[in-house]
């Protein structure tokens, strides 16, 4: 499908260029491993420091060095932070992709490229700025082994000069990026300054793009979803993390390692959280299940292929009712698929993970703030429901830098659910005359557990993945099996109300509803504004967890038309909605993208406009 995108283009009025301020996107094309990530981060941090709402998307290959990588930075005075399909400015630093990068520019766009390529101008409707990259680096007093990496600072200096980013802000952003280390920051800054000055003396501004200070980022933070998840876990009282490296989840555990000091006991200097790098995902999940069984708040982070390996154990933990938390930072599958591209393709898989009659609880964060919140809340929910809790983030949310309000401290205390201490067990016996592991004493499907180490002669029970009865003894009786599944289903209904409820924007006068989840949120919000500008008002419900809340089910019947927007190929939430809503729901339409890239407002806008057209004509 061809999406009709209208980027900002150069418009001339009476021969004057009409300036475009704080509302355009810039794309940097480099080679992977060339150090461009630092330069891009400096640009983002600089815009953020100027008070301009900004977002960055890294489109990188599955490769350590050499393959092409693109980084887009979007500034939006209106606060939109979703990916934009088209960018007005291309910084072409990779000769192997430059031709395509230039073709993709809209008329009126800008191309910045190295002078030494001597490329000439293939288009007349864009502005070229040619920059002596090699020369500028050579002239700076930089140790020779740093030269290649530092070359990317040249475009930072040129962009700063051309688009009006003050040098002192760049300097501060460099210090932020290098965690306050003066020496590397200043070495880079030297190159930035040189390029800035060269640009001022040699380039004639011929494009309309400018950054201007705003006051829209004050008090906000910049952070990746994976770091937020790590912090949330540490504030959630996580005691065991076990993992096996896999893109794009690795930085969750890197975050835990980076902030482990938060959990260092000041008296002994020793840690209150165990971080174990396992031999594979089979072992990682086994470790957290063993730990959760023994009473730990245990977590692993992985991605699709790792989830596949965890399937058997996930069924075990579901059936034996062991709390643990599994983060799935989704990428594009099946198999290795496209490991550095984003997707929401694991939703159905994790919701039903394992062989036969399992329904797993899944949390669906849509922002870095929710990554933090679900980071700690997942442990409470796992303990309260006594089940694995999956948290499905994705590469876009997890690995890209996002703007956010500072995270809120978890004010409610740590919840441990129905876990009986020795004293509580004694009391339980005194009141009920018995305690059995899988008897539903409260009628909510959630039973009482004890932990190994509880000093009571009747605290022990036998945990198994094989058939068992209410007393936790081995059973092959059909009625025991069925009764257990009925209780687990009841527990699932209890979970429906305990887990995060949807975020809803609903006005009964509006007849079109949008349902979505996760990292699509900024694109959905922006698309709703675009649709509203066209005269189509929409309601919006964002699902934040599975099992689906009743509110989500009701939302579908409250509308003449419902669009379910997601970033996988199969329309997986749409399928879950259809499964949960028995009545006719032909008015519910799946809009499933799954093109390996973060969702865009332009795509949603185009799709809904196309599908609404015949409905409007009928009237």
């Amino acid at each position, binding site marked *: 499908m061809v999406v009709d995108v209208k980027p900002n283009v150069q418009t001339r009025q009476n021969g004057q260029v009409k300036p475009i301020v704080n509302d355009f996107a810039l794309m940097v094309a480099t080679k992977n491993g060339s150090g461009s990530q630092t330069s891009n981060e400096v640009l983002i941090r600089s815009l953020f420091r100027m008070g301009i709402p900004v977002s960055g998307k890294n489109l990188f290959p599955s490769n350590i060095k050499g393959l092409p990588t693109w980084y887009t930075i979007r500034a939006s005075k209106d606060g939109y932070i979703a990916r934009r399909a088209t960018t007005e400015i291309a910084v072409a630093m990779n000769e192997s992709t430059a031709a395509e990068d230039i073709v993709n520019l809209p008329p009126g766009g800008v191309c910045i490229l190295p002078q030494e390529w001597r490329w000439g101008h293939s288009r007349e409707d864009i502005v070229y700025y040619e920059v002596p990259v090699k020369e500028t680096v050579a002239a700076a007093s930089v140790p020779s082994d740093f030269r290649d990496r530092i070359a990317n600072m040249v475009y930072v200096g040129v962009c700063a000069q051309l688009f009006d980013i003050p040098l002192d802000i760049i300097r501060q952003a460099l210090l932020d990026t290098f965690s306050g280390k003066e020496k590397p920051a200043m070495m880079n800054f030297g190159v930035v300054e040189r390029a800035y000055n060269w640009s001022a003396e040699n380039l004639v501004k011929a494009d309309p793009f400018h950054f201007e200070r705003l006051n829209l980022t004050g008090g906000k933070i910049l*952070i990746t979803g994976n770091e937020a998840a790590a912090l949330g876990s540490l504030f959630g009282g996580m005691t065991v993390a076990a993992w096996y490296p896999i893109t794009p989840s690795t930085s969750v555990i890197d975050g835990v390692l980076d902030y482990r000091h938060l959990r260092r006991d000041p008296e002994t200097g020793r840690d*209150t*959280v165990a971080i174990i790098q396992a031999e594979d995902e*089979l072992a990682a999940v086994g470790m957290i299940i063993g730990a959760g069984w023994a009473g730990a708040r*245990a977590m692993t982070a992985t991605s699709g292929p790792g989830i596949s390996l965890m399937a058997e154990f996930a069924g075990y933990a579901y059936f034996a009712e062991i709390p643990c938390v599994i983060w799935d930072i989704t990428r594009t599958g099946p198999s290795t698929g496209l490991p550095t591209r984003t997707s929401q393709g694991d939703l159905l898989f994790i919701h039903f993970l394992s062989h036969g009659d399992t329904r797993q609880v899944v949390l669906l964060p849509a922002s870095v703030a929710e990554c933090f919140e679900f980071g700690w809340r997942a442990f409470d929910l796992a303990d309260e429901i006594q089940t694995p809790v999956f948290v499905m983030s994705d590469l876009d949310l997890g690995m890209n830098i996002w703007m956010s309000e500072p*995270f809120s401290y978890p004010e409610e205390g740590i919840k441990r659910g129905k876990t009986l201490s020795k004293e509580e067990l004694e009391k339980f016996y005194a009141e009920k005359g018995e305690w059995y592991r899988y008897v539903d004493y409260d009628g909510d499907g959630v039973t009482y557990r*004890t932990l190994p180490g509880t000093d009571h002669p009747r605290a022990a029970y036998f945990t198994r*993945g*094989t058939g068992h009865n209410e007393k936790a003894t081995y059973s092959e009786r059909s009625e025991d099996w069925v009764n257990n599944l009925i209780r687990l289903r009841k527990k699932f209904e209890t979970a429906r109300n305990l887990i995060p409820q949807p975020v809803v924007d609903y006005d009964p006068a509006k007849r079109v509803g949008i349902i979505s989840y996760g990292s699509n949120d900024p694109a959905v919000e922006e698309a709703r504004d675009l649709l509203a500008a066209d005269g189509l008002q929409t309601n919006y419900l964002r699902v934040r967890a599975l099992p689906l809340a009743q509110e989500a089910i009701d939302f579908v019947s409250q509308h003449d038309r419902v669009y379910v927007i997601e970033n996988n190929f199969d329309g997986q939430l749409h399928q879950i909605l259809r499964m949960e809503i028995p009545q006719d729901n032909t008015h519910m339409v799946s809009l499933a993208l799954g093109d390996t890239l973060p969702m865009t407002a332009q795509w949603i806008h185009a799709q809904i406009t196309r599908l609404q057209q015949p409905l409007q004509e009928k009237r």
Partner: protein
Amino acid sequence: MTMPNAIGLERTDYKGSPSTLCPGCGHDSISNQIISMSYDMGLPMHRVIKLSGIGCSSKTPAYFLGRSHAFNAVHGRMPSVATGATTANNELIALAVSGDGDTGSIGFGQFKHLIRRNVPMVYIIENNGVYGLTKGQFSATSDEGQKLKYYGLNELPALDLCLEAVIGGATFVARSFSGDAKQVQTLLKAAVSHRGTAVVDIISPCVTFNNSPESNKSYPYGKEHEIPLHEYDFIPVGYVQPREEITADYSEGQTIEVEMHDGSVIRLKKLDKGHDPRNRQQAINVLEEAGRDQLFLTGLLYYEEPRPVLGDTLHLVETPLVNLPEEKLRPSKDALEKLMQGFM
């Protein structure tokens, strides 16, 4: 009736449910020795966790120590569960039972990595050289040249799990024979006292699928070919019947003393070979020689202490992680605010 042990419990308190294994299974006599050992040692059952994978051997934790929590895991992945559980609570005494299929095939990777991390636990392999629960396929420890009813001739060499353990860096490796109750019990006592992964490979004949005299994991073969590394009073027993526990009777002859981490001492009588269980190279050599001769050596093959256990290398607090109060688990509001400043 037996006398109460050090913590006032009788032997019957350490029992589990009745076994559902084939009558005469070597595994049942091992369960019996676990009961006796636990009773003798006065193990506090609430601190013991019983772990297993999948297979005949892995069913046995139901048959001993009924007052201990148990975790019958998925096939080959008990080591990871043990790693997690003992990391969560370092006061737990982990007794794990696995089999040759569970350890030598599907769980081989986890077995090796458990050893590498030196997770403090007793890892018993009830090794019968055959897949019993799926009715008699060869396992990775089946003898080369062995014949089985449905699967014909095994043309692949056997894995020696003790050799694998020693090479993998295990800090306690022993081998015994399920019929040798006294030796099994002595070795289990030493294993429980060890701070680190204690691997005890117990040849345990399968009475149903692997008990032909040609198999080196059969009773007739075992009785004829067992060579104790260190001499114990070898008492031929009926193998298949639960028996009264036998008190370990250490020889006062030529002995070496091996001190356990907890200060207890086991004394082993040296044979002519003069096997020193602290010598890793010697352990490898004797195992390779025995393998060449298709013999199995019993006794403590290798022993190393002290070496850091997993909790040490993870730099964890001494308090069990599961017992930490909330103020140790959740950093303060101030800490979060300070952190947020850093992201601005």
